[in-house]
Structure formats: structure tokens, C-alpha cells
């Protein structure tokens, strides 16, 4: 592999951009394909499918074999609410290999003492999320059940087509939340993408158990089903 292609591949990963390295198995010729250059590539269809699945693999074209090294951004979890569940979820997510960041404007909650080794941003989601560029490789879990904090985050997560969107709250709380979102123009198909009540139904009681159920639900959305944006297409 040319070192400049390796550098470009690594740069794309650092900047959360998708990229595919195409290697001709016969001869070893290589090129890097990005979503921007995809349409003009001779293997456009196969590369497009590989980007969607996120999986590397061999493809054939006219008797020639090519290996696609597929690189899609690492999944990260954005947690709204520096609450008890988040304290349990943060180390679990780290163990499972996910990047996690916590956002909560309430400075009494969002302290480094409560969250060692986790980035905690003590500011409003409307300020924090746009520069963070949440995307379809982002999971969003809202735990404050305060509309002033959660709603904006949910709206941005829906628009960014986050592959997982979950919100804590009773069915009644969620019903009101849906009314507010629909009043803002979101359709039922949009709001159906919000997992609520949040987490897999494993009978979780304690904050740590709820964190397990949420992490399990995030992994389910990531591994078992196609990313949300693919389902719609």
C-alpha cells in the first residue's frame, strides 16, 4: 500500500469520514474511494453496498477480484443528561469499545468528579451538538426527561439520522414528547425511530441495569438491523 493512501485512510478515520480502499488482488493496484468520488468509480455499486454494510470483503468484476477495505466512522454514543444511569453507562460503553460523551447544561450534574475518564460538556445540546456533527454512526440516548434539554437533542438526532435514538420517560411522558415533536413538523415515521421507553425489556430496575438494557439496545440497532438511513431507502 502506498504510504499516502494509508495516511489518507487514517486521516479519514480521525475526521469521521467514510472511505474505501480498493485493492486489485491480481497485481495489487490500489485506489482510495470516498463518498465524493464514488459515483465515478468503476466499482461504484459494490463500493456503495459495502459502505452501507460497513463490512470489508472481496468483490468480483469481469473476472477480476478486488478487496474492499471498508472504513466507516467508529460508533459513538452521545448521552444527554449527566445522571445516575449515565454514570453506569459510561464505563460499560468504554469496555464495549464505544466512544461516549455526556452533555448536560446543569453544572451541578455535569462534573468531572461524577464522571472520571469521560468527556462531560456542561452546556446546552443546541450549543454542543452542531459542532459535534452527529451522524448516522452516532447513537443518542436522552436521560434528563426534561423537555428543555432532551427535545432539541432529539430533533437534531432525528435530522442527523442517528442509527439509534432513545429517550427515557414513561409512556405518558413520551406521548407528550411525541406531540411536541409532531407540532414541530416531524412525522410519525420520524418519531417512531425514537426508542421509548428506552432500553431492552430485561426488567431492569437499578440505574446500572437500565444502562445494560440501553447498551444492549444500541448494540442491537447497530448489529442486527441495518443503519436507520438504509431502512428508509
Amino acid at each position, binding site marked *: *500500500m502506498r504510504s499516502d493512501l494509508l495516511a489518507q485512510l*487514517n486521516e479519514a*478515520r480521525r475526521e469521521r469520514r467514510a472511505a474505501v480502499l480498493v485493492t486489485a488482488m491480481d497485481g*495489487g493496484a490500489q485506489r482510495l474511494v470516498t463518498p465524493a468520488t464514488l459515483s465515478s468509480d468503476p466499482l461504484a455499486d459494490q463500493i456503495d453496498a459495502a459502505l452501507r454494510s460497513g463490512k470489508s470483503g472481496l468483490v468480483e468484476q469481469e473476472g477480476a477480484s478486488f478487496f474492499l477495505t471498508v472504513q466507516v466512522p467508529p460508533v459513538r454514543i452521545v448521552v444527554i443528561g449527566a445522571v445516575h444511569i449515565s454514570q453506569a453507562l459510561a464505563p460499560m460503553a468504554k469496555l464495549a469499545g464505544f466512544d461516549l460523551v455526556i452533555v448536560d447544561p446543569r453544572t451541578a450534574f455535569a462534573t468531572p468528579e461524577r464522571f472520571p475518564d469521560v468527556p462531560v460538556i456542561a452546556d446546552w445540546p443546541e450549543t454542543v451538538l452542531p459542532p459535534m456533527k452527529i451522524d448516522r454512526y452516532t447513537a443518542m440516548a436522552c436521560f434528563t426527561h426534561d423537555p428543555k434539554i432532551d427535545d432539541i437533542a432529539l430533533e437534531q438526532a432525528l435530522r442527523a439520522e442517528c442509527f439509534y435514538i432513545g429517550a427515557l420517560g414513561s409512556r405518558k411522558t413520551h406521548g407528550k414528547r411525541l406531540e411536541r415533536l409532531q407540532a414541530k413538523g416531524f412525522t410519525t415515521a420520524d418519531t417512531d425511530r425514537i426508542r421509548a421507553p428506552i432500553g431492552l425489556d430485561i426488567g431492569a430496575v437499578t440505574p446500572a441495569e437500565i444502562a445494560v438494557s440501553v447498551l444492549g439496545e444500541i448494540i442491537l440497532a447497530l448489529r442486527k438491523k441495518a443503519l436507520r438511513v438504509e431502512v428508509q431507502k
Partner: protein
Amino acid sequence: MLASDDDILGQAEVWAKQGRGVALATVVETWGSAPRPVGSHLAIDADGHFLGSVSGGCVEGEVVTEAMDVIADGKPRVLEFGVADETAWRAGLSCGGRIRVYVERID
């Protein structure tokens, strides 16, 4: 912590920038219960240091040995491992799977 594929490609770049000879091994095909998925990487430097895995330990030694030749002559190679392989007694997959590994030099 386990080395992720990110660390491996990043390390390969760092090694290459340091002027070391570097090879990258990639699992390109698997059959049966292969231990590491397609796309898994192993980065190897000319001194035999390596990071990552293509098989969870079964055939890494053989891949590192082949990588030395790849670093020396720059020609990519495709290696195949499996229980049916004649080298199974020294580099086989005890799980019964088969894998194909592409080894290339970073130039």
C-alpha cells in the same frame, strides 16, 4: 486494552514514517468458523514487531515470517491457512476454519 483496527493502521503509518520497513496483513476471505473477521489487520515491522491479529494467535507467526519476505522484495502475497493446509501441523487453525490473508508492503 485490545488493539482496534484504528490503532493498527495508525501504528503502521507511524512505523513507516519512522523509516521502518512495514508490512500490512489483511484477512480477505474466510470459510467456516474463522477466528477473525474479513478486514482484520496485522501490522508488522522489519524487526518482527507486530500489532493486531488475523487469527487470534494461530497463524500470526507464519504471517510475520512471510511479511519479512514481503518487506524485502515488495511483492504482495496471498497466504492461505486452514486445517487442510499441508502446513497445518505448524500453522493451522484449530477451529477448523480457513482464512486467506493478503500481505503487502507499505511503500
